């Protein structure tokens, strides 16, 4: 069975108010924000600065190790985001909990300003696809810096991998098959059980 989860522009507005306002609490003593009751501090960061982590690392160790280092940080972020969201009250049937948690991913991302996306999940094959039709915030920031020949969003690839794996209990890896920073019209992340490593 194929599942498809979308966020309309209207829903994105609603999610923005929910995710970026209702779920944020401010600790005035620390001057620090907390999200969704989690103990991790949360802050606003320019998307271009997330891209800078990749760019700086690329200059030192090359694209492939830099990609994985960014991916791993994104992975933890996605995993923890799903972990916190798993504690939100929901009315989904018990046997639908995993898919329900996966479905929350795009509304949280659009509400947090990462980009509006659609998630497709085929429970027969286990394949999962996250498509950001307008690009991710990081991809858009990277595009402003100039066109690249390699994807700019390994952080987001790691994030969707962490979110997906925490939701479905899988061990999938994600690859960026399309990226706006390369001149593609959208950013697409697709799951794979095992990726054959690629030479430069």
């Amino acid at each position, binding site marked *: 069975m194929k599942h498809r989860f979308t966020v309309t522009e209207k829903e994105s507005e609603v999610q923005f108010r929910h995710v970026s306002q209702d779920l944020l609490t401010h600790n005035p003593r620390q001057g620090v924000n907390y999200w969704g009751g989690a103990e991790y501090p949360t802050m606003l960061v320019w998307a271009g600065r997330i891209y800078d982590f990749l760019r700086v690392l690329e*200059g030192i160790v090359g694209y*492939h*190790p830099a990609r*994985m280092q960014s991916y*791993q940080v994104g992975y*933890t972020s996605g995993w923890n985001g799903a972990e916190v969201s798993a504690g939100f009250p929901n009315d989904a049937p018990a046997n639908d909990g995993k898919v329900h948690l996966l479905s929350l991913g795009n509304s949280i991302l659009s509400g947090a300003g990462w980009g509006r996306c659609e998630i497709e999940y085929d429970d027969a094959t286990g394949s999962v696809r996250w498509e950001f039709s307008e690009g991710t915030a990081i991809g858009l920031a990277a595009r402003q810096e100039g066109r690249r020949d390699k994807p700019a969003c390994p952080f987001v690839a790691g994030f969707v991998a962490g979110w997906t794996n925490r939701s479905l209990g899988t*061990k999938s890896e994600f690859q960026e098959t399309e990226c706006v920073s390369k001149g593609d019209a959208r950013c697409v992340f697709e799951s794979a059980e095992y*990726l054959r490593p690629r030479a430069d």
Partner: protein
Amino acid sequence: MAVPRTIRSGAPLETIIVRPPIDLSEALREELSGMRNVPGWISAAVTRRDGLAIQHTFGSSHEANALCAMAAAIVGSARSTGEELRQGAFNYSVVQYRDGLLLVMEAGPEAILACLLKRSANLGLALLKVTQVAKRIEERLEEI
């Protein structure tokens, strides 16, 4: 609205390990185990160019994952340095520590072989063996 509580679960990075096809995995394990007869050999790992572990002989995945990520960074840094200094392609790297040696070599264009050896290991013999194994790993990876 109820404030959700953060629930701790297993370390997320532990779940990043992505297993290669079983046949390939066994073939690589066999190749790595073949290095046991090199005097001073401790452990070895094959990693993708991005640092994601493919196969290893370490006692814990955590240890292997850390080495693989660092081996990829070593190769990446060495290649960048070579390009910067116009010294040509990267061949291999030997890092000497007080207690041991780390030998890192590309196993074809898609993978890296990292070997941990005792400080007293015969480096010449180890290099010879590691070069042979790296070549075979390259061939194995071409099969998939």
